[in-house]
């Protein structure tokens, strides 16, 4: 096979030939959004490159804990930290820190062993504790940036300096969508702060791979932008679309062959199908009382996040490749005890329910669930009841999608500051996620501004030890 570096040349964006030349693996997606005929697909030389190995996961649900939940208060029990509460950290703090911190601060929360795997989980997460045997808990995640903006960008795009395509965009670019009546990359209620749309932007990848933000409209309904118009009667719209189609066909006939004009005819059909399908996917009234109870949908504390998790499951089930939900704000520079308690109560039950629900429906095997924040927190205190940002060692967990269930991977030092064993950088996490989806992270490239870009830049090692 020729080297990927000399395989393709950059060319005009509107030419689909050029697009294919620019892409290394986006072929399936291009096909899926209707710009390619079946013949063209069959003739495409890039097609065979797509699946060099069988994917274990088909889709991703990312439960993003915005703000940076504290590993030493949730998943990473540290007896040494309890023992040395109030004493100075016996080794150097990082050269770059975001705030001045004091001495060691023991977790105010108790931990217990759970499940057959015996993972220790904080008392804050009683529901997640019940599903630990389904989780692959990585306690040695680390990133490069100690500020929300940089860290969040790196977690979502692999770069902590400049906007790059989001991982959801890369995944869609690599795999396309499983349901072309829905966007392939959805982010529900994302934060607009700390870089906002940079976290779901396709950046230099074609706009089709842009994440679609689902936000609440003025009626407090979660909606895809422009999916419906309040005052339009379906009959009237159908009549207008019929005229539009007839006029566009006339226009096409006068114009002669033109791929863009043809594609636009198709895009209206697709838009109409999306408009028809999306509301039913979002209709939670179809869920059974048992499911509603499982997620805590009608509970005041858990209701809001339960709704997002349930929507995530429904979108995922309907074939959306990458669904992100966001919960926060886990940034406890102060009032750690109170706020971590409150946030955990909101998050714990819906997340555990999602895992259980996916499992019951047989979806967990092919759905990769990722839980975590842009960084963790320091084992040393900020003020009396707070912790500072800590990108040097923290916990995220994976579930389903071909990862080993019921394991804990990696270690931080005895106080929970630095990842020291089986360290997993964000780049490694990205490489591993792509691998689970059947994509070689070194081959998923896009030529832009003079070089071939990857989600993992020049880094990333697959963590084979956690793959089932």
């Amino acid at each position: 096979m020729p080297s990927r570096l000399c395989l393709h040349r950059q060319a005009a964006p509107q030419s689909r030939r050029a697009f294919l030349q620019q892409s290394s693996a986006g072929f399936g997606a291009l096909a899926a959004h209707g710009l390619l005929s079946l013949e063209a697909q069959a003739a495409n030389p890039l097609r065979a490159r797509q699946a060099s190995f069988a994917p274990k996961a088909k889709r991703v649900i990312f439960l993003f804990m915005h703000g940076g939940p504290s590993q030493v208060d949730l998943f990473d029990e540290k007896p040494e930290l309890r023992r040395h509460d109030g004493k100075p950290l016996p080794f150097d703090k990082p050269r770059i820190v975001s705030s001045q911190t004091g001495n060691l601060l023991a977790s105010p929360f108790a931990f217990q062993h759970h499940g057959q795997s015996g993972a220790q989980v904080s008392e804050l997460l009683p529901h997640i504790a019940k599903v630990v045997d389904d989780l692959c808990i990585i306690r040695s995640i680390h990133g490069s940036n100690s500020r929300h903006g940089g860290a969040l960008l790196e977690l979502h795009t692999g770069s902590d300096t400049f906007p790059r395509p989001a991982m959801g965009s890369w995944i869609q670019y690599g795999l396309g969508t499983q349901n072309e009546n829905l966007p392939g990359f959805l982010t529900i209620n994302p934060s607009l702060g700390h870089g906002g749309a940079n976290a779901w932007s396709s950046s230099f990848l074609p706009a089709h791979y842009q994440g679609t933000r689902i936000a609440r409209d003025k009626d407090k309904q979660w909606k895809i932008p422009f999916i419906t118009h309040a005052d339009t009667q379906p009959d009237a719209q159908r009549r207008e679309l019929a005229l539009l189609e007839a006029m566009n066909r006339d226009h096409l006939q006068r114009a002669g062959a033109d791929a863009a004009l043809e594609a636009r005819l198709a895009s209206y059909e697709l838009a109409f199908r999306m408009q028809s399908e999306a509301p039913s996917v979002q209709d939670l009234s179809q869920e059974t009382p048992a499911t509603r109870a499982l997620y805590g949908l009608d509970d005041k504390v858990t209701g809001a996040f339960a709704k997002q998790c349930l929507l995530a499951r429904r979108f995922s089930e309907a074939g959306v490749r990458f669904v992100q939900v966001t919960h926060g704000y886990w940034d406890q520079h102060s009032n750690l005890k109170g706020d971590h308690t409150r946030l955990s109560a909101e998050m714990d039950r819906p997340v555990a329910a999602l895992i259980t629900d996916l499992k019951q429906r047989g979806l967990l095997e092919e759905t990769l669930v990722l839980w975590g924040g842009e960084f963790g927190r320091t084992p040393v205190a900020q003020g009396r009841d707070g912790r500072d940002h800590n990108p040097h060692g923290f916990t995220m967990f994976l579930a389903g999608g071909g990862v080993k269930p019921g394991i804990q991977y990696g270690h931080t030092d005895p106080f929970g500051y630095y990842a020291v064993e089986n360290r997993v950088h964000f780049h490694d996490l990205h490489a591993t996620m792509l691998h689970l989806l059947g994509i070689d992270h070194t081959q998923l490239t896009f030529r832009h501004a003079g070089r071939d870009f990857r989600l993992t830049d020049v880094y990333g090692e697959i963590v084979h030890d956690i793959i089932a």
Partner: protein
Amino acid sequence: MGVRSAIILLLLAVRGLSGEDPRAAFFEKEVRPLLASKCYECHGVGEGQKIKGGLRLDIRQGWEHGGDSGPALVKGDVEASLLVRAVRYADPELQMPPKEKLSDHEVVVLERWIVNGAFDPREASVEDLREASSAGIDYEAGRAFWSLQSPEDPDVPPSADGWARTPMDAFLLDHWQGRGVGPARAVDMEVLVRRLSDALVGLPPSLLGLEGVDWDRPDARERLVDRLLASPRYGERWGRHWLDVARYADSNGMDENMTYAEAYRYRDYVIAAFNADKPYDAFVVEQLAGDLLEDSHMHEKVATGFLAIGPKMLACDDPQKMRMDIVDEQIDTTGRAFLGMTFGCARCHDHKFDPISAKDYYGLAGMFMSTKTMVNYRVVAKWHEYDFSPPDVQEAHAEMERLRKQSTDKKASDEARAKAKDALAKLEATTPPLMKVMGITENPTENARVHLRGSYQTLGEETVRQVPMVFHRDTATQQAAPEDQSGRLQLAQWIASESNPLTARVWVNRLWRWHFGQGIVPSTDNFGMLGSAPRHRSLLDHLAHELTRGDWSVKRLQRLITTSSRYHLASDASGEDPNADLATVIPNHHVRRRLDAESLRDALLGLGDRLDLRMGGQLLLDQPGTYVNRNRLNQYLDIPRRAVYMPIVRSALYDAFVAFDMADPSAPEGNRRESVVAPQALYLMNSQRVHDAALALAASLPDTVAEKKLAALYQKALFRKPHATERERALAFIASHPEAGEAWTALCRVLLASNAFLYLD
């Protein structure tokens, strides 16, 4: 704690190892196996192995010479040895082995080895010592690359048949005839007027007051072109193109999304520059070094906003990283915008494809480090601004600041506070805002050292502030920046000189791209090895010479292009070879273009007679020095000004604009996509703004019989009469509509969503 005291204990317990040199025994028993098992994988020579960081630990000379970061250890000095720092894991940026920390015992072994002089019997072979590093960049070969050679001024091919009106046409005709095709037919005037009107001013012709124009005059096209070029709308249209390249926005957009409250002055400068036909060379110099020109006033300082308005991580705990990231963004943007060169690729290592070394990159970096973009790198960092307020206004603001403090001073009496508050209110009511300008200025000069792998923690050799080597004919013509100047002015003048092989080419190629949808060089922002080859080099070079011959006048070139025979070709591909590869040849017909995001919005407002054509000024509602409020987008969308004036909030762009391929202001973009995606259809079907536009358009039509009303609608929206089938369908739709009052609005909605409206033939 434990680790450190353990070392001391172990070091004190020096035991003799029997029989041989104890240092050798220690090395063989403890050190060699440790290095072999934990380090060789990345720092040893094995089959197909790449040495990481340039450091070998499998031979003594490896660590003596060291890697990219310098010698790995200092004999006898544990604390000064990089190797020890790395294995102790105390520095998050230098941790080895990267995957897993060594055991405390292993760390102690290495420390002890170093304390005792780092005995190492492993000798390098000759082969080992051969310089492994690349031979560097072949500048001679680089200079031979087409884009780095000066453009020739090619002879215009002779052209007999009278089709060619301009030399540009003759080049194209020659190009097509070589492939055995001739030019497509010419378009009708009505199509041409709509095409020209969108291309030059970005508005439908019905909004331009062209009633009464005699389209049958032989010089009607030229007169229209002149009229459009003279319209202030021209600068708004073409200024917007440049703002794509300048990655213009009104906020920072990264973590801390601060208001760029003064950026609009730069935007207005750009619009005015196009309207005034500022020569392109002056336009270049002002944006890069306007502050350094003799006779530099506010106007020229505003121009340097180009370097200041980029996205920045304003909250970074590492000020040195922030500084170098900002410098990098400036180098990358400058290179791509003016030269089509991806200098940014050489930040971490020599450019892999183009003849630009890391040393060249840091030569440029020195210029931008010697430039003051920021006044500090704190969290949240603050950028440099000029203050052009009159002295009394400045004083009033200083006084207001003093009163503000006083009015909240807890130590002062209630009476004093109240008094200060009163005085403050009075001053605030009468004092105009400060007239600040976001722009750069000079810093004390400094040379950059090469940052190995892009990190300021691993510095290499010092570089000279100068333009990259490949642009010097030979080392004799190398010229470093004057000691007391950043070199930015010299850089700007070099870019803007006629002898620069890239500048004129890159610019005429941009103009071509914005007119015809694809550049002569399709990769508009990359003229390097990975860019596209020119589809017609003589044409490109001819146009580059036309630009400089015309003293870099942009309007002159616009006139040449838009009055050419090429410009009048129909969007009719029937006479083109269906297998022609448009990446390598220029088609013999016009290529249909979709309205871009701004043209679409302006037309939606304008056709309903709702467009406010006032120019310039600040529409952003956020105060200087505050976070930008992302929740105001809908408010901004309601302002009926031209799209170019709508605030651009980075990382929170307008959904509908993004759907229609608005340029992402996080990086230069000279080649917007023209995508066809379902969200565009959803927007046109369901957006309240499109509904409002249809309503206003319908209301603006004359109250007359259906047939005449339809003709008025088509004239207004499409600048033509409806075709017979269009008329039949539309009239039937109106006649059969169940709610007569809604019928015309519905028809307008359909027309605004139709390809006939969205595309320009």
